[in-house]
């Protein structure tokens, strides 16, 4: 049963590779020889599985190395198709690894992964075509898929923009986590909150610089009614992540006020960035500095007001008590 499972998994990995072979259609006789080579590889693998071998978690890596060794052998037989296969292999390394994760979930993961890869490839065509289906079609074509596969994206350009935003957010989280680790290890100084916020927002907004020409179009796509829930969700997770890594652990009203403040700062800075024409967006970063200072000032002012208020109330209470004493109301008869 286990051997059957492993065999099926190997077969599925094969399918990932065999569909790689099917893509270059020009040289069919060479393709078929390559594919026959793959079919031969499968029984060889099965033998490997039966002998004492490393645990299944690394079986995909063994297969991957095996494939690379195998493809080196095939160099003599099929040069053109091998180059195509190697290029495809570089762009599809995930498929064989993902097959480990279990039968039920496997295909859905591969579909979404494929969609993610198409969208990532489409990003490089955005300066040319804008945030549109043409960019996605060009991206699909670089992966060797027909442009008809853009039909998978029901939301069209919205999918592309949301994918880009998700990618930027995860990049930012990685950077912040890395910095946090540095601080934990004592290799870096912890930054003041205002500086931390400023750096985080700047890093995040800098990711838009390559697409700044077409970013207004992307923002308008995000404001479409059916995209608003998703874009708000991404914005809120972004702000939450930044505050978390800034060290905020508040559990009261502060949680909401802090995130609201940062959301306001982020949105306004983004809008300023769209119209900024100064070298390296200096004006934008100055604007960001000022807004963060405003918020910090407001926070300290709020505290002052609160303490002043308390002091005033205490004073009034004291005055009332004294009056009561003077008029004799406090005396006990």
């Amino acid at each position: 049963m286990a051997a059957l499972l492993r065999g099926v998994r190997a077969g599925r990995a094969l399918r990932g590779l065999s569909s790689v072979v099917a893509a270059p259609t020009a040289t069919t006789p060479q393709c078929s020889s390559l594919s026959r080579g793959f079919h031969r590889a499968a029984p060889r693998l099965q033998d490997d599985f039966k002998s004492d071998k490393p645990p299944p978690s690394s079986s995909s890596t063994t297969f991957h190395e095996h494939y690379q060794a195998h493809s080196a052998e095939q160099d003599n037989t099929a040069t053109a198709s091998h180059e195509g296969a190697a290029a495809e292999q570089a762009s599809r390394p995930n498929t064989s690894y993902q097959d480990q994760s279990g039968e039920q979930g496997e295909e859905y993961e591969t579909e979404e992964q494929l969609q993610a890869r198409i969208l990532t490839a489409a990003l490089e065509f955005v300066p040319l075509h804008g945030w549109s289906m043409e960019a996605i079609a060009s991206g699909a074509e670089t992966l060797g898929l027909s442009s008809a596969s853009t039909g998978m994206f029901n939301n069209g350009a919205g999918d592309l923009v949301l994918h880009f935003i998700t990618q930027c957010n995860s990049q930012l989280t990685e950077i912040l986590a890395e910095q946090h680790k540095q601080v934990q290890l004592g290799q870096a100084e912890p930054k003041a909150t205002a500086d931390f916020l400023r750096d985080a927002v700047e890093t995040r907004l800098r990711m838009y610089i390559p697409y700044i020409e077409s970013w207004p179009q992307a923002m308008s796509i995000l404001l479409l009614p059916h995209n608003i829930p998703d874009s708000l969700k991404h914005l809120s997770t972004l702000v939450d992540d930044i505050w978390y890594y800034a060290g905020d652990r508040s559990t009261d009203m502060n949680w909401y006020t802090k995130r609201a403040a940062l959301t306001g700062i982020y949105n306004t800075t983004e809008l300023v960035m769209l119209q900024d024409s100064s070298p390296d967006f200096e004006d934008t970063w100055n604007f960001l500095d000022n807004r963060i200072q405003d918020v910090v000032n407001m926070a300290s002012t709020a505290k002052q007001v609160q303490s002043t208020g308390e002091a005033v109330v205490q004073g009034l209470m004291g005055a009332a008590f004294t009056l009561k004493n003077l008029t004799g109301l406090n005396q006990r008869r």
Partner: protein
Amino acid sequence: MSASMRLLVRRAIRLSDTNIQISAAARAAARAAARSSSCRCFSDAAEDRSTHFGFETVPETEKAKRVYKVFENVAQRYDIMNDAMSLGIHRVWKDMLLHAMHPQPGVRLLDVAGGTGDISFRFLEYVRSQQERQRRRAARSMQTPSWQDISNNYSTEDEDGPLESRAVVCDINKEMLKVGKQKADSMGISTGLSWVVGDAEELPFDDDQFDIYTIAFGIRNVTHIDQALREALRVLKPGGRFMCLEFSKVTNPVLARLYDAYSFQMIPVLGEVIAGDWKSYQYLVESIRKFPDQEEFTGMIEDAGFYCVQYRNLTGGVVALHSGFKL
């Protein structure tokens, strides 16, 4: 346990199905294996196997012939009957198919059971108007071109050739294709369109040829639907899209009653009055009832090896638009 074994067997079959793409030798064997696994008793004589022709049961070999005769008879009045029976709504359905397709310029379409060419004409119109719009947008953004831009334009005009979209109409019935060709001539469409006689179960094309495969109101007439689906998978390029427009089960019970009454009472009468053929239209209406419903057909498409299979009900389930991708 048995459920997981069944799942594994299903995956193994799909594996054997996808390997069809690679080696021609394995194709016949795989198809035989898949056919035997679909729980049909595999007898030597093909005449022993029977299938439905409307509400009749006929041997499989006979069904293809009888379907051919049906469409041979109705070919001349096919379009008029379509308009009469569906009150013109079939045009909306076909337009919605095109909008869901949203073809990019430069794609190749295979319209199977295309007959009179409705889908292909719409496809060519859509792509050409899109190209027009793109050219107009490009022209608008280049109101004052420099000499460099103008010389670039001259060099890129030759490249427009390969970007030309092409549609191939394939039908098993020569009469329907004849009618379609006449329509094309009268509409003045000549470039980018070809007419091929072929059987959906055995397409006369190489592997990985087409970006989009459509079959509109044709797949219920095919004797072996799974074979047609596998052929569709074969001729599509990787990333290609399979789209099927077909009559399906109406979900709303009130609408279902009305629809049934209309189909069985009105349509054969219309057929007799307009086309002079009651029996063909009786067959047409009965074949709709014999076709699997939306979910079952989605399962069949997935079994053939397509991914991201979805369907959309049009007109409350009277027509369903199924779409799948070869990934």
